[in-house]
């Protein structure tokens, strides 16, 4: 069944988009991430322009992260003060990202920027995740305890000033890296149409030593607010959010996520991280191939203005 998207200005098969929402939702529920890094490329692949895809996926991620955040809130596995602090910088990052998005679009370099960001981020983060989880798998084989968090081990991050205590996460860290991470996630999210969950979770664990009990819930709150504000900002400045597309995606996404969560809970932590690492890395390689391989057509057209 075809349905016409009023902002993307194209008909799509409603079941195809719903299926994409389900599949990505399943993966996002399984790994506790938003899944934007999969959804945006998929939309571009079916013919939605990158700009509309990035803007519309933001609201889709807002929906799935809100659904997840409620769960973590009920289980008290969510550090609200930490999330709010990350957010204060995250909003600023999102605004900067939306602004840069608009500028790059005018310069005809938006597609390149999106492509480059995907390649660098996904291959680097994916490779790091594969490396880390393989070590954990090996350690588990040898019968050693798979500890990720070594309490008491300090890095240079812990030497920074303006220290703040976060009770629920039981950490005492400088506000500077918290703001830095928040800004980066907000910025990257607005440019790439991703929630940044797959980036934020490792960063919180490795840099701030946030315990696994609160890390995903906190990350979801951040994703929720940055993506919700990205939706509003993209709609207000670029007029590119397709509400019909977003609705189909989010309905599929939230349903798929519920099943994904169940699968994810049955799998071992390091296996799950290895799988996610491979997935992230593969998507990164796919983007790298696109940048390097000779395009089918050297020419492309962009709308400048309607009379």
């Amino acid at each position, binding site marked *: 069944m*075809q349905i016409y998207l009023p902002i993307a200005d194209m008909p799509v098969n409603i079941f195809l988009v719903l299926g994409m929402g389900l599949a990505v939702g399943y993966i996002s529920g399984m790994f506790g991430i938003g899944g934007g890094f999969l959804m945006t490329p998929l939309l571009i692949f079916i013919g939605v322009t990158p700009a509309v895809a990035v803007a519309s996926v933001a609201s889709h991620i807002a929906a799935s992260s809100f659904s997840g955040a409620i769960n973590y809130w009920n289980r008290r596995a969510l550090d609200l003060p930490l999330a709010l602090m990350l957010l204060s910088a995250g909003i600023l990052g999102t605004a900067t990202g939306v602004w840069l998005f608009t500028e790059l679009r005018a310069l005809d370099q938006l597609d390149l920027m999106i492509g480059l960001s995907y390649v660098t981020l996904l291959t680097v983060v994916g490779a790091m995740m594969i490396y880390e989880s393989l070590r954990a798998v090996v350690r588990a084989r040898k019968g050693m305890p798979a500890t990720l968090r070594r309490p008491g081990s300090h890095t240079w991050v812990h030497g920074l000033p303006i220290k703040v205590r976060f009770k629920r996460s039981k950490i005492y860290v400088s506000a500077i890296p918290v703001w830095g991470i928040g800004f980066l996630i907000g910025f990257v999210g607005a440019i790439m149409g991703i929630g940044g969950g797959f980036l934020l979770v490792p960063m919180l664990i490795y840099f701030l030593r946030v315990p696994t009990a609160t890390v995903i819930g906190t990350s979801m709150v951040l994703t929720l607010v940055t993506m919700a504000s990205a939706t509003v900002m993209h709609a207000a400045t670029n007029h590119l959010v397709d509400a019909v597309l977003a609705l189909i995606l989010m309905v599929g996404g939230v349903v798929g996520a519920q099943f994904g969560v169940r699968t994810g809970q049955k799998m071992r932590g390091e296996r799950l991280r290895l799988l996610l690492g491979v997935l992230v890395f593969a998507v990164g390689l796919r983007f790298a191939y696109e940048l390097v391989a000779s395009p089918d057509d050297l020419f492309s057209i962009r709308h400048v203005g309607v009379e």
Partner: protein
Amino acid sequence: MMGRIALTFLVVMLIGGVRPAAAERLVVSLSNHRVAITSSFVGEDLVLFGTVEPDAGKTALRPVYDLVVTVTGPRETLRARRKQRVLGIWVNVDSREFVRVPSYLAILSNRPASKIAASDTLRRLQVGLDNFLLPQRIGPDLADTVREDPFRLAFIRLENQQNLYSEIGTAVTFLTPTVFRAAIPLPSNVPVGNFAIDVKLFADGALVARTNSALEVTKTGFEQYVADAARDNGLLYGLATMLMALLTGWVANVMFRRD
């Protein structure tokens, strides 16, 4: 005096090889003047019917006519960009702006345009994609380029791939020597706005009659509402979309709650 004028007239006509007073009239009618884009819109074929009428009933009709229908959508400005490899990756390095060109262009005829008239006639009347005026911004000026210009060729090719520009030499059918029908294909991605239809009648390689018509493509109902809201009230639209996202997330959470 009168006799001399008549004689000159006759001589001119004999030399020119044309028959008396080109006085055909075109009567055309469109199957639908208003195309509505609804949620199930997947494109539509419009039909233009028409007849060639002798003007004032005096002149005889010619045995063979050719017909060219040019449909142009609302004007817009587009930029064609060319990629080039820079440091191993493909980057848009060069671009050309096509200013106020039709967002939709269909040139429909009963046989290939090149066989209808001489190339300079076709060029003057903008018959065929090669001859249609596509002004580009070149420095401070607006001008069309030669038809072999790589940007112009790429632009037409890309618009053609999107089914927005087309030249169909078989889209017009003469049902009798004077009654014709033309199929106007509107693709699913047809732009919204006013379309102009220009109908040209040729005989023996010369333009003998011309008329025009129009059609309108509009979004209706929900599609119209969403598109208007997104454009005119971006902030409010964004807030509404965000609330919709939160509501969807909450509903899913309640529905799948396990305790």
